[in-house]
């Protein structure tokens, strides 16, 4: 098969879009295939919090690297990407969670992440709508908020300026281990390398890939500017969000540049249906009211759901599959894919071109899973 493209990227979510931007910028002849709308999958459902996290060294490395790339890109971002450097406020409800504040401080500071420990009074001062009696919090100044679908569109526009092509309304049926893809209409497109960037749908094209759909709910309010000023996340988040087993909710609220409040979030496995589940919505909102009693009186205009692509070790899968070095993966970003899209794009392009990577790539390689990318036709 003669290859007219160096690389075909399947999926135009924010991850596929960032990969396309980096590949095309590096001079690769790039084609992006998307069955629906640009950023119309999980990217349209995600909160858009650009956040540094510290669950593991690898997660920290990727989120911190990515956040740096966002900050560097900031001057070029069009207004509709709604970039807002509002920072994150991790709130501690009690002394146990306050210990977590100090642990985080101890982790971040030596690694060069600017953080501030806030006591109870300072938390009340910076976010007066939080209930009284919280223990304190940790403010991470350089975290931000974006509007993900327009960010994905911007990345693709950049990619196209570097010569990438985009085809929409194209469904890929199969990835071919000898390079190329088979489309739903049976036709084939050839390329040296294929990237599966189909997010929660990636196991459909790469059977055996240990990526599971993890459903989340969000509620958005009408404009209420100034109700909160930071993205506020409870520290109980760490306990609930990462207990892989059962359904969980955690308090998480985001001020949008529009003045709206975006309220999250929930996590559920084995809930493939896209409908709103009122039982979990109930729990999620009650949790939020515990922190922000005044939230009850804002006006809600829409509730929606999305599916995160979750992996067993909570890290994305970036790099060549074990079965075919022509088939690559850029998926499994769970609840951090907006943040880590930019780092993923860089890492993928560096690996493809054999360049040194800015952060270690091993923790993200598909090879870490025994059956990482099992059978391809």
């Amino acid at each position: 098969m003669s290859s007219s493209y160096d690389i075909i990227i399947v999926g135009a979510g924010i991850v596929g879009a960032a990969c396309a931007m980096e590949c095309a910028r590096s001079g690769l002849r790039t084609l992006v295939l998307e069955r629906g709308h640009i950023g119309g999958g999980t990217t349209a459902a995600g909160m858009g919090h650009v956040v540094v996290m510290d669950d593991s060294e690898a997660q920290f490395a990727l989120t911190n690297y990515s956040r740096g790339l966002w900050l560097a890109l900031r001057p070029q971002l069009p207004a509709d990407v709604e970039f807002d450097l509002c920072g994150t406020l991790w709130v501690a409800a009690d002394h146990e969670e306050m210990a977590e504040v100090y642990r985080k401080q101890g982790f971040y500071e030596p690694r060069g992440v600017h953080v501030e420990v806030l006591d109870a009074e300072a938390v009340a001062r910076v976010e007066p709508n939080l209930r009284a009696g919280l223990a304190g919090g940790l403010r991470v100044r350089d975290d931000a908020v974006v509007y993900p679908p327009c960010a994905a569109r911007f990345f693709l526009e950049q990619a196209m300026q570097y010569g990438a092509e985009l085809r929409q309304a194209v469904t890929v049926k199969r990835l071919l281990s000898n390079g190329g893809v088979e489309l739903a209409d049976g036709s084939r497109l050839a390329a040296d390398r294929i990237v599966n960037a189909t997010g929660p749908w990636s196991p459909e094209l790469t059977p055996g890939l240990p990526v599971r759909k993890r459903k989340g709910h969000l509620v958005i309010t009408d404009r209420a500017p100034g109700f909160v000023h930071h993205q506020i996340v409870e520290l109980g988040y760490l306990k609930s969000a990462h207990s892989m087993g059962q359904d969980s909710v955690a308090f998480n609220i985001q001020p949008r540049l529009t003045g709206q409040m975006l309220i999250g979030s929930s996590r559920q496995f084995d809930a493939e249906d896209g409908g709103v589940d009122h039982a979990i919505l109930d729990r999620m909102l009650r949790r939020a009211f515990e922190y922000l009693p005044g939230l009850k009186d804002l006006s809600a205009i829409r509730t929606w759901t999305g599916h995160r692509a979750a992996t067993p070790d909570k890290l994305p899968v970036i790099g060549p599959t074990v079965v075919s070095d022509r088939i690559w993966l850029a998926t499994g970003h769970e609840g951090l894919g907006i943040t880590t899209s930019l780092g993923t794009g860089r890492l993928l392009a560096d690996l493809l071109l054999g360049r040194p990577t800015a952060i270690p790539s091993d923790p993200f390689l598909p090879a870490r899973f025994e059956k990482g990318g099992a059978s391809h036709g």
Partner: protein
Amino acid sequence: MTEPRSRFDIVVVGAGPAGLAAACAAAEKGKRVAVVDDAPSPGGQIWKGEQSRLSIPQAQKWIERFRRSGATLLDRTAVIAAPEPGVLLAEHPEGAREIEWSKLIIATGARELFLPFPGWTLPGVMGPGGLQALVKGGWPIAGKRVVICGTGPLLLAVADGLKKQGATIAMIAEQAPMSRVAGFGFKTLRHPGKLVQGMGIFARLRGVPYRCGVWPVQANGGEQVNSVTLADGSNQWTEKCDLLACGFHLVPNVELPLAMGCELAGGCVRVDANQLTTVPDVYCSGEPTGIGGVDCALTEGQIAGYSAAGSDDQAAALSNERAGWHAFRLAMSNAFALREELKSLANPETTFCRCEDVAFGRVKAASGWREAKLLTRCGMGACQGRTCGAAAKFILGWGMESVRPPLLPARVGNLTRTNR
């Protein structure tokens, strides 16, 4: 005062003609019936305020019958979600309400269709139905010069009402061609009630220019509308006005049926001979099944009420009457079909989505409704595309999107269900 949780045999959503008729029919059969409505009193759009005004005999008759029927009115109660089968979640000024039902009758009516044209967002430009409601609520209109334009029988009814309150109706501009409107008038001969009503209105509107085949192209003014430019295909001219009432007939309110999973056909809820939707135990009557007017709504409402109460015979006895109103409904939709010219009134700069202030040019550049939403925020505001979504459907041929809770903007606290 209503309870946070209540349960009824039959719950009717909407207290307009269709809902009242359904409630009467079912309650008179001995069922425990509740009618849920956002408004403080029964009557819906057309009979708003009739319980105290006593101006429409037909309204009086039905409101009186409803009072005696034993049905409960849950007023100031807006249905915001259907959290699980057999349960509605609603919002009341005092808090969330959960209403359980064994059978549900949806009678949510319709809203006005607005199409964007330059100047349509100027203060003083509003829907004829909206203006009528304002005036009924005591808004002073006497001495104001009003141009009424758009389409449908509502234009005449509103002109009549405004004139009675002392407004000067400068012109009624109906977009449908004379040939079609005249044909419609002839067809209504088969429906004597309608004809008398129509003749009464025409007599009272003597002296008011009623022009067919005329439509608005621009509303003019700085702070406030002061004139409207009209067109008839060969000429354009300007009419001075203090207020411009403009509406392009009605769009069925199908958010609740969609949230329940009811199938639609041609934008209206699909029902069988008993007014039963494609979802078991969920009935629908009145405008959501097709824009048919008050008499059609009353008949469909009674059929739904009798069927839901198990009186299929009484429901069946009304099927001929309903067939007559359905013929009228079809004639009306043919007569007042929207002309192609109305699709190109908006400029690229014309506001398309009022909530989010999105211009038509940006919306039109998208490949469809969902892309427009995601990339321009069109339809993402408080009204969730109730206005611009309907316009996009006509102008751009885009399908409307799926609904998500809340069905109307609601207090966040009311999205959590009452404690059990």
